[in-house]
């Protein structure tokens, strides 16, 4: 998998998106900044969707023996 520590990056993506949404909820927004942030939000959303739809869970059976 190309994506390492994928879940952490999900949290980051999600945090970034939340920040942008909060920014839009603010009172005065500049249109140039709004456009840039909108595009960024759309990129983040696409990445989150891709992640949730396509990332795999990795199950690793431990080789350790637990019978003492």
């Amino acid at each position: 998998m190309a994506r390492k520590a994928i879940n952490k990056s999900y949290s980051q993506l999600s945090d970034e998106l939340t920040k942008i949404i909060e920014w839009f909820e603010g009172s005065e927004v500049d249109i140039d900044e709004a456009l840039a942030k909108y595009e960024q939000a759309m990129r983040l959303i696409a990445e989150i969707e891709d992640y949730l739809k396509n990332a795999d869970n990795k199950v690793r059976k431990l080789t350790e023996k637990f019978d003492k």
Partner: protein
Amino acid sequence: MADLVFSPSEFVAVFNQTIEQAYPQVIIEGELSNFKVSRNRWVYFDIKDEYASVKFFGSVYQLPGPLEDGLLVQVIGYPKLHHQFGFSITFQSIQPVGEGSLKKAADLLFAKLSAEGLFAPERKRQLPQLPHRIGLITAATSAAAADFLKIIGERWAGLEILLADVLVQGQEAPAQIVSALEYFEQITPLADILVVTRGGGSTEDLAAFNDERVVRAIAGSRTPTLVAVGHEIDISLAEMAADVRASTPSNAAQLAVPDKKHILSQINYQKTAMHQAIKEIFDSNINNIAEQKRWVVKTIEDIITDRKSQLLALKKLMKVFDPKAVLRRGYAIITKGTKHVKSVKQLKQDDSITAELSDGTISAIVGKSNG
């Protein structure tokens, strides 16, 4: 053989060798009696039935929890003739058997651990909202493991699940579960949560989850714990000691991770909200520009109107000052040479002057002046 004479030491050695070969390990089930713990370390008890009683010896670390006389127990150990204290069986494990004994033992352990505050609500930690590494302690080939992994897979993505394959029932189960919990204590990085689970079963099947060592290891885990033992009637002490309890392995998966379907629909909603927000920002900017345009046009129009009325007023004023208008009212402008005559003192008799009237000029000679 009958002629052989042993010293006591030789007899002990030969006896132990012989018994070890014949019965390296014995399993004895019976009623617990004379149960004693010495110096918090050594355990002595007898197992008896109607006709016989056998002595046992061992360490407190082999106990599944507090026990008391009268319980029906199954003990695994090896027989040994001690060089001073005589015959006993050194026990490796002791488990209450039968529903009544198991229940009684669990009650004893519950009372002991409650008094220590092990189940106190204030000890409970919240599970992280989004775990990345999950330590899963269960029997790898069990339906419980399959259910947990299936539901986890349906709900979330990109997880790393470390599966510790342990026995979840039988006398070896407690030690294996504890060993797995200890393993997860020392891995780096730590797992975000530990899930200990198995499906339902009889009271005896689930005994490991009422074992003091297991319950303490769960309560003492640095990593938040989620325990699900699939039976509904009695909650095991391991579940009570966990930070969070789930009813079944599938329920554990539900509690461990959020549902991606929910997140995806939330994301979809956010997407729509963003579209709306950016549209509103554009609309509001367009409105602003239109308004600004209207303002500029109106301001210019106002300026023009203002200037026009100023000009009109000036024009009227100019008319008042127009000398021709004065002439039309019967006045005349007198000039001598190139100079306007403003006073009779400028003139003397016989001077040539010009009088400008509204409709022409006349030349004249000054007669008499009375200035």
